């Protein structure tokens, strides 16, 4: 069912004025009206048989996370005569909002309401379970659409490049997040929570997220949409201490203050810091820019605060990992060897001291950032920076454009900027949108020939409904379906 545009007939008028294609069709079907011109359109003309028309400008967006949806939102708002096909590798939409945002941060997922509004536009089509580079080639999309927009994010990890990184029980935080959030490719990840100590390498917000999930009282997680199997595993977890380890000093910490404050308030968990790491910062902190100053002050206050709890969160600075040590028999992780760094707090430059220390642990989570990759050899791509580069008719936004940093707000801002760039190119006629393009019908042929089952937005709503029902049965907002085949059985068309 197509939804009626609520702004009808105003937006319709606007479209009519912009669409020469439509005018032709309209003239044909209303041929009884003598010499019809744009300026002569009045409401009375709507009394003739309604004509279905397809927008002439056809855009394809790859990836259905925040970057893709905010990009689409802005295009619909400013370009009346436009249709958007959104392709997604997974059967279900929303990217990192579904699979990245921590289950105990449901408020952050409120952006989905905006995305649903975008999806309800009659000129928007979602096509889930379509993988660029495998099911459909980039060159085919370029042929079928006036512009292709890449918003597929970053799907690999940066690596440390140190010995022992591939030992069992060294896992990437990205995969760990995918595991507890039900990302199909990570659902079978083996997570060994039998050790009391975990080392998280990296100090960004993802590192704090995984630490919080490991340390949270299970009752707080039970009421979230965390996957049932990870809830089971976490309820039997032996983990008591999580180290959050970074190379640089407390004044360079990469996490933001909200995430730290949340840890300091987590029931039953003490946030312990080493006071000596703050030596020499007293005179610098008051003069720092506001955000950095407030974060540093919270660290200093926490360092000398009496706390209670039998689990420990230990942000540790000035430790550079040099080797991950495994048992000679089983190969399982036993600890991480660090070189102790010294730092010039003012300049933020860390230097090795030649002193080493081993931190014993049974699980290492590597959380030093994501990496963007090209998913099709024809994509204009800068492999050094891991980002898509602009070329005529090819746009990108979000992490695959800026690199993997920033919160949803920064992605939203980038998506608006980049979609404005596309609109400007249309207006300046540097992007040709006057020639006729087949759009999805051309892609559909390819997909049919490869027997690819796709999921449209109605299909996703079916999956969504079942997930919410299954969640309600166990007191959770949602129980995610983690099996692609099952998603396709429910929502495929």
């Amino acid at each position, binding site marked *: 069912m197509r939804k009626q545009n*609520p*702004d*009808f*007939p*105003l937006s319709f008028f606007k479209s009519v004025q912009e669409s020469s294609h439509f005018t032709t069709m309209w003239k044909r079907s209303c041929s009884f009206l003598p010499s019809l011109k744009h300026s002569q359109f009045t409401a009375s003309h709507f009394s003739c048989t309604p004509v279905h028309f397809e927008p002439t400008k056809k855009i394809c967006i790859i990836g259905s996370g925040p970057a893709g949806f*905010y990009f689409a939102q*802005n295009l619909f708002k*400013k370009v009346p005569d436009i249709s958007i096909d959104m392709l997604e590798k997974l059967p279900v939409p929303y990217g990192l909002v579904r699979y990245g945002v921590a289950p105990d*941060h449901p*408020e*952050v997922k*409120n*952006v989905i*309401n*905006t995305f649903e509004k975008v999806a309800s536009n009659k000129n928007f089509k979602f096509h889930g379970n379509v993988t660029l580079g495998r099911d459909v080639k980039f060159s085919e999309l370029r042929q079928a659409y006036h512009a292709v927009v890449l918003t597929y994010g970053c799907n690999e990890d940066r690596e440390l490049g140190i010995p022992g990184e591939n030992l069992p029980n060294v896992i990437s935080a990205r995969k760990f997040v995918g595991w507890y959030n039900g990302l199909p490719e990570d659902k079978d990840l083996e997570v060994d929570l039998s050790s009391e100590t975990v080392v998280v390498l990296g100090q960004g917000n993802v590192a704090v997220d995984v630490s919080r999930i490991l340390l949270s009282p299970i009752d707080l997680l039970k009421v979230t949409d965390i996957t049932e199997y990870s809830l089971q595993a976490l309820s039997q977890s032996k983990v008591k201490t999580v180290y959050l380890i970074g190379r640089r000093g407390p004044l360079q910490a990469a996490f*933001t*203050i*909200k995430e730290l*404050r949340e840890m300091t308030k987590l029931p039953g968990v003490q946030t312990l810091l080493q006071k000596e790491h703050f030596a020499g910062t007293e005179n610098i902190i008051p003069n720092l820019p*506001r*955000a950095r100053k*407030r*974060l540093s002050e919270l660290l200093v206050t926490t360092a000398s605060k009496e706390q209670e709890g039998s689990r420990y969160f230990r942000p540790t600075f000035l430790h550079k990992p040099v080797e991950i040590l495994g048992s000679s028999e089983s190969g399982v992780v036993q600890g991480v060897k660090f070189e102790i760094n010294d730092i010039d707090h003012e300049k933020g430059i860390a230097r090795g001291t030649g002193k080493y220390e081993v931190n014993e642990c049974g699980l290492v989570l590597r959380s030093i950032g994501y990496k963007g990759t090209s998913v099709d050899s024809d994509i204009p791509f800068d492999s050094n920076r891991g980002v898509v580069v602009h070329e005529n008719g090819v746009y990108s936004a979000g992490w695959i454009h800026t690199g993997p940093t920033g*919160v*949803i*707000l920064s992605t*939203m*801002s980038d998506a*608006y900027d980049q979609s*404005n760039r596309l609109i400007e190119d249309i207006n300046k006629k540097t992007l040709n949108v006057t020639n006729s393009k087949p759009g999805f019908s051309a892609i559909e042929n390819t997909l049919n020939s490869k027997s690819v089952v796709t999921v449209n937005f109605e299909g996703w709503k079916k999956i969504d409904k079942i997930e919410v029902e299954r969640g309600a049965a166990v007191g959770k907002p949602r129980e995610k379906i983690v099996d692609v085949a099952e998603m396709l059985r429910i929502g495929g068309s």
Partner: protein
Amino acid sequence: MALRTLCYIGRAIESTKIGLHTVQTGARSLSTSIRVLNKPEYSVTFVRPDGEKIKAKGKEGDTLLDVVVNHDLDIDGYGACEGTLTCSTCHVILKPDDFAKLPDKPSEEENDMLDLAYGLTDTSRLGCQIQLSKQLDGLEVQLPATINDARS
């Protein structure tokens, strides 16, 4: 526009229903409901970075975010987290006098979010935390330049 008109009609019908209902259920609730219906309205103006002014009205106790949502004001990305203090998209800049007039200072949580806002000033607040009141009637707030700019 059509949608907006429908919304207004919808709201008017809703109000009428409340009115009728209370007439039937007795004088006491009637007076309560009249008070609700007659909740004073105050005006607020949002000023875009290019100087364009968007004027709107809201009831006492409505937040600036409520006003934007209820009137479907065209401000890009405003209130992404819907007032749950997990983003800073409803950032507004107040005049120093108005800033001082606000009954509550920003909470730690609001300040944590403001820390991430673009174009932060000493008189910045989140619109979801500012409630309309008699004292603030006619309030004029500036929208920051980097986000919510006049992109059209």
